[in-house]
């Protein structure tokens, strides 16, 4: 049985365990129909030209983990941003771990999607927001919607800000030979609210894991959301991340994606600007080796006038790794005075590494400022000579230059401890002792 058939069969089993009379289940059933029709995307589709899911589909993934698996905090502490206090929503093999989590209902809701989808007190919010910005067409998103049951639920009411950042961490323990998990996150920042989220997926063994995640983020008027994705998983873990963001007037949403690991990673990041004077920022640092594959697909839809979007993705590709950047910007006819900037710079440090980069601009307004730039290059020889002439060996000099190349993406990281962590990850990833703590 191929994976698609298995999923269809599993849906019936899934229905035995959820309330099928709940209105949310109509949404699931609708989504399942779409997935049944469309199936997994193939390389024939333009959006999947450079990323193939064929090999993943041949793996016999378990759809439901058999039992809950416990983890000791001390064994996984390093994956948390333990230098600071945070709220934590932790899942082990797709199942919520209350032991590792720290949730709250104190003025804000930082808790579980399974509660939000079932308890009457959340019904109103779910009716308004659930599956409202996520695509009802894109097959992997609909696959997630069909099986949506668990994930993080964050609701920040008007004028509120949680006392500390929120970490959403998914561990997989290798309890199953191969596991498919489909987290579903819903994040709402009401008017004037502010929120910082760090999301991480971490496999703890070399058993295959595939995560097909959907996150919906709603930023109301004047809200500020910083979202950080740390993708540094093992070489048998694949991730398809579908993030949909709905922004209203004068809201500011920044998504940083740090891709340093994993087998196959696909980031579908979609911004919809439903208001004026909105600021949307997407930044990424990608550093790959081995046969790793990362595909960044961004979309910014400028629907109303006077908004801005900023994209800055830096990639360093070594060994046999492959990178894809596809940045789509749509500016509607009424979205005058739009400022949309897009930058994608890449360095190839191996003859066998590949990058496919493609800006895609669809501009229907005439009074806009849009710019895009893609570069693929090697390191600057003059800069290399400068560092070497100071006694820094070529290998370390190269690493220092790559670090400098990626660095400006980090400037906008607003959690200093996270910034330090990422700096260290970059240094480690580049494989050198730089002689100082970055």
């Amino acid at each position, binding site marked *: 049985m191929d994976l698609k058939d298995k999923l269809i069969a599993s849906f019936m089993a899934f229905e035995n365990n959820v309330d099928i009379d709940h209105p949310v289940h109509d949404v699931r059933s609708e989504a399942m129909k779409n997935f049944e029709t469309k199936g997994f995307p193939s390389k024939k589709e333009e959006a999947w030209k450079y990323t193939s899911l064929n090999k993943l589909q041949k793996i016999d993934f378990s759809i439901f983990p058999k039992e809950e698996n416990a983890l000791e905090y001390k064994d996984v502490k390093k994956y948390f941003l333990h230098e600071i206090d945070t709220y934590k929503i932790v899942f082990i093999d797709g199942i919520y771990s209350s032991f590792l989590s720290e949730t709250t209902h104190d003025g804000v809701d930082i808790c579980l999607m399974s509660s939000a989808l079932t308890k009457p007190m959340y019904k109103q919010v779910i009716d308004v927001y659930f599956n409202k910005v996520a695509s009802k067409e894109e097959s992997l998103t609909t696959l997630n919607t069909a099986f949506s049951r668990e994930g993080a639920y964050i609701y920040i009411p008007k004028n509120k800000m949680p006392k500390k950042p929120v970490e959403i961490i998914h561990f997989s323990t290798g309890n199953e030979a191969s596991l498919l998990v489909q987290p579903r996150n819903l994040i709402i920042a009401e008017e004037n609210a502010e929120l910082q989220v760090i999301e991480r997926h971490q496999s703890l063994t070399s058993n295959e894991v595939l995560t097909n995640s959907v996150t919906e983020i709603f930023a109301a008027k004047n809200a500020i959301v910083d979202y950080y994705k740390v993708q540094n998983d093992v070489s048998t873990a694949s991730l398809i991340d579908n993030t949909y963001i709905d922004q209203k007037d004068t809201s500011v949403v920044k998504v940083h994606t740090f891709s340093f690991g994993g087998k196959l990673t696909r980031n579908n990041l979609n911004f919809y600007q439903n208001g004026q004077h909105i600021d949307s920022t997407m930044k990424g640092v990608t550093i790959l080796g081995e046969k790793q594959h990362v595909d960044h697909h961004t979309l910014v839809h400028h629907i109303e006038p006077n908004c801005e979007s900023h994209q800055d993705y830096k990639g360093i590709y070594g060994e046999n790794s492959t990178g894809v950047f596809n940045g789509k910007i749509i500016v509607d006819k009424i979205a005058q005075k739009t400022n949309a900037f897009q930058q994608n710079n890449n360095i190839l440090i191996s003859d066998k590494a590949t990058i496919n980069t493609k800006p895609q601009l669809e501009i229907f307004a005439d009074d806009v400022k849009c710019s895009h730039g893609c570069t693929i290059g090697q390191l*600057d*020889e*003059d*800069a290399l*000579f*400068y*560092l*070497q*002439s*100071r*006694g*820094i*060996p*070529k290998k*370390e*000099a190269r690493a*220092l*230059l790559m*670090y*400098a190349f990626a*660095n*400006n993406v*980090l400037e906008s990281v607003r959690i200093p401890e996270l910034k330090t962590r990422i700096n260290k990850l970059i240094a480690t990833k580049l494989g050198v002792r*730089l*002689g*100082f703590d*970055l």
Partner: protein
Amino acid sequence: MLKINDLHAKVEDKDILKGINLEVNAGEVHAIMGPNGSGKSTLAAVIAGKEEFEVTQGSVVLDGEDLEDAAPEERAHKGVFLSFQYPVEIPGVSVTNFMKTAINESRKARGLEDMPANEMLKLIREKSEMLEIDRKFLSRSLNEGFSGGEKKRNEIFQMAMLEPKLAILDETDSGLDIDALRIVANGVNKLKSKENAVIVITHYQRLLEYIVPDFVHVLHDGKIVKSGGKELALELEEKGYDWIKNEAVV
């Protein structure tokens, strides 16, 4: 200390150095002057080991050792320092961290442990005061957004930190106002000793009022066409380079 014998070098297919002979002893200051395009900066880069230039003939010998196969960092470890005309910007790496890396790499090459942090701090403080560098400046990204003067002062700061045997200052005076020039020159003079040597590459005589050379060489079309004492620099300032070019042709 440094012996350059009949040095020829080219970049791509263009011959730039066409037979340079130069001997620099410890304790000496040499000035190399010459019109634009005469090969001054190339000479500096070739001594420092820039791979882009191909040495086709002759040799660069430091303390009896031919540098032909030495990488730029190895030359640095042996005590060669080049102050760049256009220092490169390295965003995200502070001046302090950069110096730590450079110093510890040099120590590693000599089989020494990392310099202890307190010693490093003391050294940084001492040298930055000498060059009248603000402490805040040291935590800024290397050369990023520095003014021309700041870049040059930072180059001399690096020289002070690394204490080279042979320092080559490539157009260190360009882009400096008179105050900055004085600070930079004072720094170089304080670093001068009987054990080390300085080669000052400059277009103008101005810097040589502050860093007084023992010898002045005029480079023209890839060759040293005239050498003399410090008075030669004054003569050049007065008469320009044309008379030397004419002399060279004769």
